[in-house]
């Protein structure tokens, strides 16, 4: 591969990793900090992508809108919409243990997928929404480097906010809920409220990831949100990187994306009669990898580190 080809490949790859890292950070707020299981990542991701697409594309008879609004408004709308959808789900299931939430998120993701697939007036059904502009295209042009820069800036902001949240009293309460719910209740905290907040914040971050995806790819359809690929890869990324560690979430996204891309090298060598099955071979390998990580190193590459205890002197560690 010549240098330019390699460079554009790297730029595209890092852009994708950036989007997955945003999703992984969203899951880290829910699972890493609070211990909530969300198997419906693809649902919130799709809501974000469609919201951004509908808000920012130019007017079309094929779907709702488009409203031709600026990129930033699209991002804000995506965040808001995902949060609005997560809120009732959170309110209903969060009093119960994480298993119920997990099942409910499967349901909500499935329904979201069905809506985007069947409601032509809203999303143009299976034909999807084309013509979504690159981020800030009107201002900075459609250069792939600009797109990458925008994704990385958003990622950096999300990481910084998540990291602030983690060490804040809010994050401390979430971790305390994960470790000992009764204790937190006894300490007088409104556990239900904190859990709903964590779920909604995580879903909003996933919606943001979806919006970025829509702008990077330029075309979205229900096919792009195969529930499992998005949800599953993000889970493997967070577990591999280290649940509870925001930097781990990003490192996990990078490494697992490299592994995922690497599996293509393996499937490329398959005999032609298996060529159509390449994606299932890849999922199979990543699925086995997840089991190995869960058994051999459940804390991930960068395990969660407890923030410095309140009052401890600087530099004396934990």
């Amino acid at each position: 591969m010549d240098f330019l080809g390699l460079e554009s490949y790297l730029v595209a790859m890092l852009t994708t990793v950036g989007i997955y890292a945003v999703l992984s950070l969203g899951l880290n707020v829910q699972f890493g900090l609070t211990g909530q299981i969300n198997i419906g990542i693809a649902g919130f991701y799709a809501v974000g992508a469609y919201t951004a697409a509908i808000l920012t594309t130019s007017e079309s008879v094929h779907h709702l809108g488009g409203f031709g609004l600026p990129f930033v408004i699209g991002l804000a709308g995506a965040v808001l919409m995902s949060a609005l959808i997560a809120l009732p789900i959170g309110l209903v299931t969060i009093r119960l243990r994480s298993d119920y939430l997990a099942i409910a998120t499967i349901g909500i993701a499935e329904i979201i997928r069905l809506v985007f697939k069947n409601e032509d007036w809203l999303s143009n059904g299976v034909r999807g929404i084309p013509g979504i502009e690159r981020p800030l295209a009107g201002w900075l042009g459609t250069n792939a480097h600009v797109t990458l820069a925008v994704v990385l800036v958003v990622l950096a902001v999300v990481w910084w906010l998540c990291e602030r949240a983690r060490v804040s009293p809010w994050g401390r309460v979430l971790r305390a809920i994960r470790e000992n719910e009764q204790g937190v209740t006894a300490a007088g905290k409104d556990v239900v409220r904190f859990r709903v907040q964590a779920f909604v914040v995580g879903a909003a971050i996933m919606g943001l990831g979806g919006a970025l995806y829509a702008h990077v790819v330029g075309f979205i359809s229900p096919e792009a949100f195969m529930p499992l690929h998005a949800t599953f890869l993000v889970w493997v990324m967070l577990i591999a990187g280290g649940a509870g560690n925001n930097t781990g979430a990003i490192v996990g996204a990078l490494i697992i994306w490299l592994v995922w891309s690497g599996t293509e090298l393996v499937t490329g060598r398959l005999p032609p009669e298996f060529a159509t099955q390449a994606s299932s071979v890849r999922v199979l390998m990543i699925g086995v990898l997840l089991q190995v990580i869960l058994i051999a190193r459940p804390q991930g590459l960068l395990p969660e580190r407890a923030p410095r205890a309140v009052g401890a002197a600087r530099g004396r560690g934990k």
Partner: protein
Amino acid sequence: MDVVQLFVYGIVLGSILTLGAIGVSLIYGILRFAHFAQGDVAAFGAYIALSVVVASGLPALAALPVAMLAAAGLAILIDQTVYRRLRGASPVILLISSFGMALVIRSLIQLVWGPHNQTFASGIQIPYRVGGLVLKPDHLLIVAAAVALVVGLHLFLTRTRMGKAMRAMSDNMDLALVSGVPAERVVMVTWALAGALGAAAGVFLGMDTRLHPQMGWSVLLPVFAAAILGGIGKPYGAIAGGLVIGVAMEMSTMVIDPAYKPAVAFAIMVLVLVVRPQGIFAGKVL
């Protein structure tokens, strides 16, 4: 369409969901985690039956015992190789592991049997007409076989030592263990039963509709809705839960787009979680 006709379809679907939900409930009762690969174990059973049907030319129902054995074996294999190593970890980890396992099984199915739709028997079945009702022979077979399996399970749980040990472990784990219940053997039998019943659900679903690698995942939500409605951890509740969800899903097509059938199962589940999270039969609140 006729209300009674849809009701009949609902009973058929309900029988299928019941078998899946019993498996989920048994596993939850003994191992205390929601097994997300149950649907894909069921799909695996269906595909094994397909291979038997293709190789032998027998009808799908005749392939059922082979499918049930194979799926029971698969369930035990998964447990012994993966879940057993995670038993000390939190149920959350087991749940994620089972989600990953679901994808592993589905990928294997797709690799071995291909990604397209398949059916057990080509051609059109000649339906019986009873009054205004149209009954397909397969529908009758599905319901009859499901009833036979549930009765068999009932006898096993109430009449055999192993069945009693399972119920004891589900009711009170610590008490059962100090009473000398062989925990690992009970766990193994639980997986075998859940796998076998799941395979039956898969084969029946394949007879009722078609086989597809995604079939297991697409019934997972209604199966869990049925288990929760019946009271999770209560295999008998799963029967009621399965029938209610099945009938509701089919009857809903009178008023809403059939594409949204899964949403009906979801809506009922959410309603149960809000109103009576322990389910109709006072199962465990997770």
